[in-house]
């Protein structure tokens, strides 16, 4: 066994009661980057284990949802779709939405699901919801390929605007992380949260212009309030980046601010609750 580094300069860790509100320690988080990597990798590896179709599910899910949505809203209810073929219209919104939904589902139960780690080993707890959000990105990447294929089928040209998808995806991830931080920390104390999440997701989906175009909501104050839902800006931005049309104006700005607010408050809330996780979970 090799000699450990026992120089007197070895880092000193202090134990003391933590009080009040704490910020996030980015330096510490960076030193745990490998753990983030491995936990994300585990979540991805495990998700489709022992499923016959395996990773194909990440393609099937958006395809099936798109088909159902198209049938119900496009064909039966004849909802407007900004002049686009309804399947493409729906899929372009369902992609970021699925990313958000999956991230939220996984991250909200992540702390409770990893209680064996939390009660046994120290690491910054924020890593857990964070890595479950990251794991959802893989599904997203796969289904993004699906979107480009279907756009090619419908002969819809791409513009340079398509690169706006990257910052918009980041915004989605941050939005999911922000809500995930709140919900996962609350779920440690109140298991009601995990019962509530499916309803929350359902309501949230209808509060986002996925099956209907944003133009359904009248412009002005109402549209601004509507944009407080971060996914409004994201979905609107996605459609613009892919198909052109009305650019995401104030909507995106309001949505981004809402994400920022949720994220900062979520981080503080999480850090405040963090110290009790091991005792309560």
């Amino acid at each position, binding site marked *: *066994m*090799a*000699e*450990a*580094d*026992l120089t*007197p300069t*070895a*880092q*000193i*860790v*202090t*134990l*003391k*009661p*933590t009080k009040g509100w704490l910020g996030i320690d980015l330096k510490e988080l960076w030193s745990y980057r*490998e*753990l983030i*990597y*491995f*936990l994300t*990798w*585990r979540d991805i*590896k*495990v998700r489709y*284990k*022992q499923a016959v179709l395996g990773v194909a599910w990440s393609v099937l899910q958006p395809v099936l949802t798109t088909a159902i949505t198209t049938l119900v809203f496009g064909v039966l209810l004849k909802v407007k779709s900004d002049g686009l073929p309804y399947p493409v219209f729906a899929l372009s919104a369902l992609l970021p939405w699925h990313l958000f939904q999956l991230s939220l589902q996984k991250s909200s139960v992540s702390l409770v699901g*990893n209680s*064996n*780690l*939390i*009660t*046994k*080993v*120290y*690491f910054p707890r924020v890593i857990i919801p964070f890595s479950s959000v990251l794991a959802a990105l893989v599904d997203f990447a796969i289904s993004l390929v699906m979107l480009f294929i279907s756009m090619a089928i419908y002969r819809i040209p791409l513009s340079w605007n398509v690169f706006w998808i990257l910052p918009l995806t980041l915004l989605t991830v941050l939005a999911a992380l922000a809500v995930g931080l709140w919900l996962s920390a609350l779920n440690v*104390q*109140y*298991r*009601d949260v995990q019962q509530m999440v499916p309803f929350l997701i359902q309501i949230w989906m209808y509060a986002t212009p996925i099956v209907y175009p944003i133009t359904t909501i009248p412009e002005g104050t109402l549209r601004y309030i509507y944009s407080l839902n971060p996914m409004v800006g994201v979905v609107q931005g996605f459609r613009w980046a892919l198909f052109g049309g009305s650019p995401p104006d104030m909507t995106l700005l309001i949505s981004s601010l809402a994400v920022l607010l949720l994220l900062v408050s979520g981080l503080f809330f999480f850090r405040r609750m963090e*110290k*009790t996780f*091991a*005792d*309560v979970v």
Partner: protein
Amino acid sequence: MMDSELSILVRGIGKRYKIGSAQQRADTLRDLITAQAARISSRLRGKGRRSSEPDHIWALRDVNFEVKRGQALGIIGRNGAGKSTLLKVLSRVTDPTEGYGELRGRVGSLLEVGTGFHPELTGRENIFLNGAILGMHKKEIAARFDEIVAFSEVEKFIDTPVKRYSSGMYLRLAFAVAAHLEPEILVVDEVLAVGDADFQRKCLGKMGDVASSGRTVLFVSHNMSAILRLTQESIVLDKGRVLLRAPSNEAVDFYLNRGLSKMGERFWEEDEVPVSCAPFRPLAIRILDKTGQVSDSVRSVDPIQIEIDYELSEDITGLRVGFYLFTTRGEPVFTSFDIDSEQLFREYTARPAGVYTSRCTIPPDTLNEGRFLLGINASSYGIRRYFQDDQALSFSVDASGGPGTHWPESRPGPVRPVLDWNIERKGGV
């Protein structure tokens, strides 16, 4: 700032748990609302707060000690004495409520082997995952990978999901990863309770290596011989406080003679039993001599009676209540359960709620002289373990009058049976 010779410094550390959160935590909003409503209504009725019941308990209080670099310190104490809480505070899993401490360097905790193992992942994948969770870098894990696999003796199955492993293989692999951690401070809790005797020996050897390579080790165990072998000094914890810090042999003696109940009988107060044991609640365990008197010291030539009193708040199916008998060195002598016999097993498949005594007799001429420990276990096989306390009670056996006592020598071994010898003369000279 602490002296550079020190590795751990702890000053006045205390950890308080709210009874509301530690024991009957509000799991759902409904529970919280009902609890709040009950509190408000009792206040309205003018009863005020239940002043007799404190709403918090101190799992640790005013704990002070330091550990030099390269020292192995044992931590001894009964279940509930605060050992696990102390290790949790030191490994930063939970914050102390008061006090201050400093640790020099990386702390690796082995609070339970296999933490974070995922059944669906292969042995290889779990080594990396578990290593990362325990704080190893990917490069370190890769460098030690072969060593870890060799130590675990599961080479052939390294690419098989661990859910297909036998429990022995699983534990060996888990321990192998943990044992190859190289933090400056290693915190170990009861890992030696796993595996077969051979593997335990191997683990003890590995722990010895860690200590002798200049790392600091904190070692918690109920196995007194492991404590004596691995540590030079130990602290004895009781009710969250440090009772004694002394060379390990003194600490072990102190603990065995004073830390446990003395009079051959042990009662469990309601607050000593975790709520999670319900519907089982141990009430008492006692040793009776042949006259039926509670006694701490019995004779090997007499029958020894053991009684376990307990209460079931609900019906339990398949419950068995029994004990482990250990020597004070922690070596098991035998295990026995109240429904071991075919007939009682059939008669007591289900036990209705109520208060019970399970009583048994150790026949005369079974045990050798010395001191023994009784551990109690209440479980439904394959379903659930309700309660276990490996050190419920200790007692002494006096062998005078037993076989071979006409020689004034002490005989090794925990049992002293009367065997049926006969001597045959095969012929004359």
